[in-house]
Every structure is written in C-alpha cells, then in structure tokens.
C-alpha cells in the first residue's frame, strides 16, 4: 500500500500523535519530535516491514500504539519488531484517545491545517463544532474527522449523512445494511435528504423495509428515481408516512400509487412528478380525508398523463395552494387542465412556468 502523503496530527487535548500514510521508502525522513507526546500511533497498513526499525522515537513517554483496525498485520511476524513496542494485540488506548486519519489528505486543505495547529488548550465544543461545520461539503475531510474521537462523531455525522443516495450497484442497499444493522443508532436518523435510484432494487430485497424506512425519520427531501424498473413497479407502502417532517417529494417514472404516498405526508410542500406510467385503473387505496399543505412548488412533467394527474390533485380535500407551478403539456386537452390548475392556485401563485410542446396551432 503506497501513500503519497503522510500526515501528522497532534491534539493536545488527547495528548498523543498519530502518523498515517507513512510513505514507502521514507522511514527515516519524518522529521518530527515526539518528545512531548504520550502516545504515538502508527497506521499499520502503511508500515512496510523493513521500515519499522528505522523509526527512532524513543522519547515517547507512553510507548507506541499500532493501529490494527484496518487490516491484519502479516508483516509483524516477519519484521524485526522492536521489543519495547507493544504487540498489535497488546494493550490499546481507549478508543476516544486514538487518533486515526486517512492518508492522501492535501496539506493545503483546511482540515490539514487544523491538524497541525498548535492548540494551547482544549477548544470549547461549540468552537469545534463550528470548525467541523466549515467542512460541510468536504466528505473526505469529514470522514477523517469522524475517526478522530468519539466526541467528534455526532457533528461530523450530521454533515456526512445529511444526504444519502442509493445508486446501485455503486451505493447499494446491502452495503448500507451491513454498515448500519442496528436501526436504533443508525446514521439514517441524521439524513435530511434521501435519494433512491432504481427503487425496485430495494423493495425486492425481501428485507423488512418498514423498520428500515422508519430510521429516516428526519428526512425532509425525498427523491425516487425510476420507481418502475424492468417492468417491475416498486411497492411504495414501506415509505408511507415514514418521515413526518417530509417537505419535498420528487418521483420519476412511477405509478399512480404515488398519490396515496403523497397524502401520507401532512407537511409536504413541494411536489415533482416526472413521467408517470399510464394509469392502469388504480383507485385511491383510501380516499384522502386530509391532504398535505402543498404550499410550495409543483413540477409536472408528465406529458401524456396530465389529465390523470390533475384528476387526482382535484381530489385533495384541502385544495391546492402552490406558490410555484412548472408544467409541461403536449396535447390540446392538457392545455385546458393547465388553465384549470392555474385557476385553482391563482390566489397563492407567485411563479408560473408553462411549457407547451404542441406541434401545431390549436387556436
């Protein structure tokens, strides 16, 4: 395993240093004094056997800790292992005192600068949170921060899992379940935005999805891309009302069951429906007695099915109160529905975007 960078982290508050990403062939080139540190932690996967004895860090008060969590150390038995080094299976530091860091981090990155900052005292948690917040769009740095200390985990997870996307096979449902088998402390609780591409790949796994979806109880934005795939229509039932906080829903290539789903989110404001499958005679699972707020935006790009969509929307007992409407239609009949929709929302309408793809004049 070759790394192009190494990084050194010293955090006075936990009084130890971590060396990760030790560059191959540079065993003696690390010019760092370990005098003041209680522990030194080396990342085992980066230590190639021959380099281990080259490191001279005899002044470390507490000895060394070998980080063995990343892999088993086959090089240990074959290397001239220093006798005074604790064995990989030996005593370990409390987890919160072990600093782990990913390799390959750019030193110019704010996170790298944070690491080499010589702090003279422990930072108040609010300040630490504010620093982590600056990395909200830097997933690599956030992952690194998440491994620093237990106390760093909640804040980094807040940003790391704010948007979760399942895009099989790259980001599959199975790998998520393996990573987070316990629903009670699942990072899904931190998600505000959930995107699932090819929904049937999840709904057909045979897993109890109701328990799984309930972990996403703070999701405010939901996006299902291709709810019908290879002629299989996903069962949306596990998602009914799964997040009471849901404000925004976007569905592409779905069935008309989506309207039952819509009615299960009382706070829903924004709705986008793209490419609905032609209506197959399905009726309301349960006629809605109360409908969502629907005070935000409506985006309809359904071309052939506008008449069916609007008929369902008219059924909402609380009416429609959209502030923004964007819609497209391609046949003359849909034009009448578009005008009707605009009329129904005229008292709240702030933005209107009408796209007509009519091929010829109909006036």
């Amino acid at each position, binding site marked *: 395993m070759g790394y192009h960078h190494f990084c050194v982290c010293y955090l006075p508050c936990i009084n130890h240093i971590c060396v990760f990403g030790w560059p191959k062939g540079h065993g003696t080139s690390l010019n760092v004094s370990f005098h003041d540190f209680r522990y030194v932690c080396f990342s085992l996967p980066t230590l190639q056997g021959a380099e281990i004895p080259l490191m001279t860090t005899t002044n470390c008060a507490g000895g060394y800790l070998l980080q063995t969590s990343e892999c088993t150390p086959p090089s240990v038995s074959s290397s001239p292992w220093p006798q005074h080094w604790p064995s990989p299976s030996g005593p370990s530091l409390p987890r919160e005192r072990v600093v782990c860091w990913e390799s390959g981090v750019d030193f110019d990155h704010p996170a790298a600068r944070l690491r080499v900052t010589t702090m003279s005292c422990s930072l108040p948690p609010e300040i630490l949170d504010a620093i982590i917040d600056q990395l909200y769009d830097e997933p690599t740095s956030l992952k690194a921060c998440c491994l620093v200390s237990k106390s760093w985990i909640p804040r980094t997870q807040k940003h790391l899992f704010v948007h979760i996307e399942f895009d099989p096979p790259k980001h599959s449902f199975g790998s998520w379940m393996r990573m987070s088998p316990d629903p009670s402390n699942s990072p899904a609780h931190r998600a505000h935005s959930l995107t699932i591409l090819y929904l049937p790949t999840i709904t057909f796994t045979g897993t109890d999805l109701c328990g799984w979806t309930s972990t996403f109880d703070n999701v405010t934005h939901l996006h299902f891309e291709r709810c019908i795939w290879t002629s299989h229509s996903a069962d949306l039932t596990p998602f009914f009302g799964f997040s009471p906080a849901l404000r925004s829903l976007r569905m592409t290539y779905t069935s008309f069951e989506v309207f039952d789903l819509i009615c299960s989110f009382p706070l829903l404001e924004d709705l986008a429906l793209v490419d609905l499958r032609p209506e197959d005679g399905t009726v309301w699972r349960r006629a809605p007695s109360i409908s969502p707020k629907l005070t935000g935006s409506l985006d309809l790009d359904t071309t052939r099915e506008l008449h069916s969509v609007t008929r369902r929307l008219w059924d909402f007992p609380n009416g429609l109160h959209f*502030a923004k409407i964007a819609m497209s239609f391609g046949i*003359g*009949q849909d*034009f*009448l529905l*578009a*005008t009707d929709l*605009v*009329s129904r929302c*005229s*008292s*709240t*309408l*702030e*933005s*209107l*975007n*009408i*796209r*007509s*793809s*009519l*091929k*010829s*004049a*109909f*006036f």
Partner: protein
Amino acid sequence: MDVATFRGRFPDLSKAAKLKDLMFLSRACNIHWIVAALKNVEYKNLRQLTIRLETADEPEETDDEDWQDLDRLLVQFWTSYSIRPQLGYAPDSKGRERVRLPDLLPELTKRELVDLVEYSHPA
C-alpha cells in the same frame, strides 16, 4: 375535442395577485395563447417575464396580428410597469434565429426594451 373548445381558453392570471415570475415556453405557432394570458395578467407584483420560443426547422404559420399584440403588450409592460421582458430563442443549425424577432416585434426591438437570450434547442 375540436379547435373551438380551446378558443378563448387560456390561463386566467387575473386573480394571481402575488405573481412575480412568469415564463412561457411554446412553439411560435401558439403565440396566441401567450398573448391571451398576458392580456389579463395581474401585474402588481410581477417582476420577471420570460418567453421562450421553440420553432421547427420549417417556417411556421403564425398570425401577424398576434405578434403585433405581443409587441404592443410588451412595450406597455415596460412603460407602465417597468417590466423588461426576456425573449429566448433557439438558433438553427447555422446559428441564425429561426424567428425573426426584430421583424415580428419591431417596436420592442427598436426601443431596445427586451433582452434577447439565445438558448439551446431541446432535442
């Protein structure tokens, strides 16, 4: 549904008092319904008006009277309500305007009261 059914039907924007942003995207041949909608728009809060015209490769039949109405309406929008419209058009494969806006909207273009924006024609 025959053509007569559509005649006289257009989005009724007279009650949309909060309307700030209005955008139409249509074939040039259907400019009539845009004009009809604009004639009764509630302008009190209107800030942005955008019209994008899609056109076919072959010349489309349009009614000159509709274009004259549109020209007059858009000039009025500027003089009365300070609303500067934005007109989008998709050039043809040689980069020329398919719709000759200076010809169709002479007053608006002569007084430079419109922002002409070129955009990619959807596939």
